[in-house]
């Protein structure tokens, strides 16, 4: 365990170091070419101190993704986080932005959210190169900045970690904005890949890799309306082998059943991600809705997931009162153990036994993540000081698959500095 933690830390540090060196190199290069320009540094921070408690922990037992781990004792380490962002403005066109966030739910491990170089071609066209955040959702770009939205956290049914896959991508993106009449239209696109190390349902950390990821996002807004349409495809996600799997596959290969072994490999999974957002903000009333659909194919455990929310509220001076309804449904098409069982019948029993057991375990894992959930949330935001907001929320969560209902009470203070 400690060994693993050390190796992860080492990886994180070396990753961070190589990034910093690369960025440092770019910065030095730019400095030397722009010595006469006025270099400016801007630093800004944000944070959330949040606490919450569920009236029982049945939902948590069923779905570990919910609320990142609230249970029936008061938890401070779920929504609490601290972030800092620095922008180095090298000249009118070039800047370097870095943002780091420390999450309590991540054992206070500092996470370099992004480091990128921005090249502003003109007031309407921007290019970013580096580690950027995948703009999967309307709130993706400022998901950690609670101060910038009314909720304590955007609805988890939609903004869940397993839906978003990996929030960071190493690559290139551009943003083009253009006014049309009273509207501002925008096109944003990215290309890149990512690699991460995450815990899977086997309780073991596994390396993930994606490549050739791309997405395009269209936006249209005016003083009142805001529309966003997104499409992303991650055509090739590879998941590293877990230890048990590795041993089994090696054994199968050794026995001349390499084909079956390769069937067990989780490589070149294709994921498509669709998103639609609509928002209306008029006088002191606002409402918005967001819908996402995730299709996972070419996988041993393909699935289809859809989630959406509808929210509305009213601002009364420093107070904001809001209500949100959210829903999420995920179905796994269990096609994993079927073919394996068929092929296993041709194998010597010494292989067939563990193979079937593994296939069943994968199926069990995916059936556990079958979800049908809805929730109602009422909340109050109070901007009690110019850089602080106090938030209170009451949420009724229904797990319809298991016929369970739970209530979550949470409170948070968001701040910027």
């Amino acid at each position, binding site marked *: 365990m400690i060994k693993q933690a050390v190796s992860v830390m080492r990886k994180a540090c070396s990753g961070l170091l190589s990034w910093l060196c690369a960025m440092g190199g770019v910065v030095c290069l730019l400095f030397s070419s722009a010595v006469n320009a006025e270099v400016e540094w801007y630093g800004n921070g944000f944070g959330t101190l949040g606490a919450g408690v569920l009236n029982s922990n049945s939902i948590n037992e069923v779905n570990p993704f919910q609320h990142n781990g609230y249970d029936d004792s008061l938890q401070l380490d779920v929504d609490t986080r601290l972030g800092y962002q620095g922008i180095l403005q090298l000249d009118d066109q070039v800047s370097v932005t870095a943002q780091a966030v420390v999450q309590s739910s991540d054992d206070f491990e500092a996470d370099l959210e992004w480091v990128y170089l921005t090249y502003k071609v003109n007031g309407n066209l921007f290019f970013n190169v580096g580690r950027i955040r995948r703009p999967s959702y309307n709130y993706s770009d400022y998901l950690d900045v609670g101060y910038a939205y009314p909720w304590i956290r955007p609805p988890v049914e939609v903004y869940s970690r397993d839906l978003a896959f990996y929030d960071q991508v190493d690559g290139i993106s551009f943003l083009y904005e253009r*006014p049309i009449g009273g509207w501002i239209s925008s096109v944003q696109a990215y290309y890149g890949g990512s690699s991460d190390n995450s815990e899977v349902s086997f309780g073991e950390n596994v390396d993930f890799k994606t490549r050739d990821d791309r997405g395009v996002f269209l936006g249209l807004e005016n003083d009142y309306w805001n529309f966003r349409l997104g499409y992303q495809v991650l055509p090739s996600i590879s998941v590293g082998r877990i230890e048990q799997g590795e041993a089994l596959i090696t054994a199968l290969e050794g026995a001349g059943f390499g084909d079956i072994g390769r069937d067990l490999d989780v490589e070149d999974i294709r994921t498509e991600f669709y998103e639609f957002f609509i928002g209306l903000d008029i006088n002191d009333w606002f409402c918005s809705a967001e819908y996402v659909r995730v299709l996972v194919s070419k996988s041993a455990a393909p699935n289809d997931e859809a989630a959406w929310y509808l929210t509305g509220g009213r601002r009364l001076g420093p107070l904001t009162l809001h209500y949100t309804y959210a829903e999420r449904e995920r179905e796994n098409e269990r096609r994993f153990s079927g073919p394996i069982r068929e092929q296993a019948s041709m194998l010597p029993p010494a292989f067939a036994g563990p193979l079937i057991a593994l296939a069943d375990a994968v199926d069990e894992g995916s059936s556990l993540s079958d979800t049908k959930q809805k929730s109602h949330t009422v909340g109050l935001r109070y901007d009690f000081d110019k850089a602080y907001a106090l938030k209170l929320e009451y949420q009724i969560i229904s797990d319809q698959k298991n016929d369970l209902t739970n209530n979550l009470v949470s409170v948070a203070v968001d701040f910027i500095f």
Partner: protein
Amino acid sequence: MKSRLLVIATFMLSMVWAHAVKAEELVVIVNPDMQGSMSHTDVARIFLGKSTQFPSGELAEPLDVDPSHPNYHVFAREVLNKSPSQLRAYWAKQIFTGRGLPPKSAKDEEELRTLVAENKRYLSYIDSAKKDDSVRAVLKIVD
């Protein structure tokens, strides 16, 4: 008698004037070299960082008054269509998504006027009573 009437008239006029000042009429100001007028939308876009150009295509940079100044609230409400807390949330979003930084600000209107008078890029807003010939008004904002 006549002099008394004059006094009353002056008094009434000054009341009207005082009332006009109380209504906090603001003017959006640019450098006198800049031509053309601007709409609420044009001004709002520049102050919200959505445009970096005057309608003429020339580079524009907004200058804000310090948030503690009463004009800040009037301008936010009437032109940007946002309450001060909404505006802070908006800038938090812009800053932390790397899209932009809030306009630079000055403590008082005299400083803003001087800066605009000296630089063609600048755009700001002051009390209409504080406007002089060193700057040009492109838009009136009535509270």
